[in-house]
């Protein structure tokens, strides 16, 4: 049985993202809703659960504001806080390594692996490791990396990528998992949740003890105490970070918060926004390394300082990866996480990915939204996601990106000119009305018209005049209520 896990991890590595090329291709699919079984219902259920929990807490809005201010302070003072964090955690035996991009981070990791003679790796959940395409790199190094987070374990077994930042296997139903275990691990089929958990536990448990290296992410890096905070529900992070003799923690530069006194508000928000829990089952605070063991912290930039160049976009770095915006997003629920093409899906991906990989690759992502604003409403650190989306749309048409086109620019120029000349406006709108009337008789509809009529009837303009004309003729006929306003006020 044990070899089955090893074999799967070896022959079906975590599917590589293949960087930007992949993103470009996936961007095309954003237009079409995919079929992801239970994803839509599960995400919607989480969203509603989250809303119910929030409604019961009178302090919630005040917590959001505080978390926002703390993050704003931290991002404004990254230069100081990162140095303070490094100084404090190094004093307790940890080694801090900086990496400007994913390649540098992987080089650090490979150096650590060689230095300590690592053969097997257990991995707790880390989004940064997805950015680094770490499993692929380790595979090339001949090291087996096993995902130990249940969701990550499932998508690794299935040879897929995580579909959600918090619940990577959200698209798999219990029956899907049963079939997966049957096929890959040779277990008898079951869809009982408890039985499935036991199977995963049986296969994962012994891996922790045997592994040489444990890799984790970082939820919060606390500067004044030099502490790494990790939150989880399954216990795998605790085992991954304590069983192996070497622990490597991966973090983005934006994970640092000034003080341990600021941690509670984030813990209050993260559990509730992520999974609707008051607090996650485990909260680990790692203050440096223990005797006889090594702790490395790799701090990764990987495009994050690009966000700092754009002051209007700073709040994209406040994200604590709770996944609430994904659950709330009607577009995400229909297209799924893979359609966003890179590590971060959903609304946060749409505003973060263009900064991290460049607008030239991900310029289309900010357009993958109806701008309904549900994400901004639920974000526990008050990232103004809908406004960030329009800001990035503006940048995407001004800077080199796949959406910049001189044709579209010409159309909008002509439109703006028409809208600034009332006679031209009325002529253009009259033509639009005539066109809509005639479109009924066309055998097929080109361009946007065809996109509209694919699943919808066109609006039918009434036979009468437009409002401009009506007003000229009938304005003087409008009637006023003869005496007093009807209203609720006493005396009416």
């Amino acid at each position, binding site marked *: 049985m044990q070899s089955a896990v090893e074999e799967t991890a070896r022959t079906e590595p975590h599917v590589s993202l293949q960087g930007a090329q992949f993103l470009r291709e996936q961007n095309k699919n*954003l*237009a079409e*809703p995919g079929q992801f079984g239970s994803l839509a219902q599960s995400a919607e259920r989480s969203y509603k659960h989250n809303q119910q929990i929030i409604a019961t807490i009178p302090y919630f*809005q*005040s*917590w959001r*504001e*505080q978390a926002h*201010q703390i993050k*704003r*302070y931290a991002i*404004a*003072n990254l*230069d*100081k806080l990162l140095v303070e964090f490094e100084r404090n955690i190094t004093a307790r035996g940890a080694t801090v390594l900086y*990496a*400007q991009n994913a390649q540098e981070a992987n080089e650090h990791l490979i150096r650590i692996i060689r230095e300590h003679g690592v053969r097997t790796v257990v991995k707790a959940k880390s989004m940064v490791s997805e950015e680094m395409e770490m499993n692929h790199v380790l595979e090339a190094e001949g090291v087996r990396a096993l995902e130990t987070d249940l969701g990550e374990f499932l998508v690794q077994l299935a040879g897929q990528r995580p579909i959600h930042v918090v619940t990577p296997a959200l698209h798999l139903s219990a029956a899907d998992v049963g079939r997966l275990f049957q096929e890959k691990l040779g277990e008898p089929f079951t869809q009982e949740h408890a039985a499935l958990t036991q199977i995963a536990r049986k296969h994962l448990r012994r891996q922790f003890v045997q592994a040489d290296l444990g890799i984790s992410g970082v939820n919060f890096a606390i500067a*004044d105490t030099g502490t790494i905070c990790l939150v989880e529900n399954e216990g795998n992070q605790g085992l991954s970070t304590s069983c192996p003799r070497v622990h490597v923690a991966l973090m983005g530069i934006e994970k640092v918060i000034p003080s341990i006194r*600021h941690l509670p508000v984030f813990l*209050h928000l993260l559990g509730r926004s992520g999974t609707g829990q008051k607090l996650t089952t485990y909260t680990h605070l790692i203050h440096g390394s223990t005797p006889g063991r090594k702790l490395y912290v790799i701090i990764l930039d990987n495009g994050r*300082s690009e966000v*700092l*160049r754009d002051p209007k976009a700073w709040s994209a770095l406040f994200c604590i990866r709770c996944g609430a915006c994904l659950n709330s997003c*009607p*577009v995400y629920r*229909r*297209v799924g996480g893979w359609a966003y093409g890179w590590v971060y899906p959903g609304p946060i991906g749409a505003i973060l990915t263009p900064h991290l990989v460049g607008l030239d690759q991900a310029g289309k992502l900010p357009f*993958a939204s*109806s*701008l*309904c*604003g549900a994400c*901004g*409403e639920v974000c526990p650190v008050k990232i103004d996601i809908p406004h960030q989306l329009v800001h990035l*749309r*503006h*940048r995407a048409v*001004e800077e080199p990106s796949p959406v910049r086109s001189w044709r*579209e620019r010409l159309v*909008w120029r002509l*439109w*703006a*000119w028409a809208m*600034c000349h*009332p006679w031209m*406006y009325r002529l253009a709108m009259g033509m*639009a*009305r005539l066109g809509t009337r005639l479109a009924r008789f066309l055998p097929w509809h080109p361009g946007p018209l065809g996109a*509209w009529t*694919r*699943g919808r*009837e066109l*609006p039918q303009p*009434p036979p009468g005049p*437009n409002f401009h004309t*009506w007003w000229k003729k009938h304005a003087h006929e*409008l*009637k006023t209520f003869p005496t007093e*306003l009807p209203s*609720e006020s006493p005396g009416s």
Partner: protein
Amino acid sequence: MHLPDEPISNRPEEAVSSGKNSDSGVPEHGTEPGAGPVPATRREYPVYEPGEPVALFVPCYIDEFYPHVAQATAELLTWLQVPVEFPGRQTCCGQPAFNSGYWKEACKVVHHFCETFAPYRWIVTPSGSCAAMCRVFFGHVDPDPRIVEIGQRVFELTEFLVEVMGVTDVGARFPHKVTLHIGCHTRRELGVSAPPLRLLQHVEGLQYVELPNVEECCGFGGTFSVKMPGTSIAMGQTKVENIIRSGAEVVVSPDISCLMHVEGILRRHPQGRHIRCMHIAELLRAEE
């Protein structure tokens, strides 16, 4: 590692503007006694003096495709003794270009809007998303305070009636089963969700039924509807299924643009064909 050239550490003073400050300049955690819950934010509305003229802003698609909505709005306001004026040079608020990222082009249209409406203290429009464009987003395309100030004068119709004028009963009669859809810009950018409901509550004979998942987007989203038609239609179909489930005969909304999309899908749905879509202004003028 790369950090910005210019140190930005002098910014937190302006960043940390609220809350109780600790020695590190960062607000403290708020569960301590006395911090208190944040009161639900309620917009302060200016006071409308009876007899003040109101300029009617009729969005482009209403002007040509739904003129009866603008007529109903003008009739309704006049009926409530509001002197209505209609500046003839008005065109569009610039939202289509703004949402598409073409802010320079949108800016020209915004300037035209502001020139046209500059003489008016009150501007009312029967479209929540256009009102949101004016009030929330004018400052994004041009931060000039004069532009922003004119944008602030724009109100969505039901918001103007209920929050500004204090009117909830307009004497309408509509003996039908009605459900309400509020556009996302109206609900979330303007924060207007109670006024349409309060107006419906005072319509004689009206039976209100709640729409399941009422807060979810219908999928219109302006150019989103034609740029990502598959997703847009899928979202619209969910909305249509919820409308059918509510058992309503009529869907009413302060945003006829959402309804243009929803009605388009309803017309092709075997169980939704008979359901009427109406702007709330039309319903409030009804004496059926």
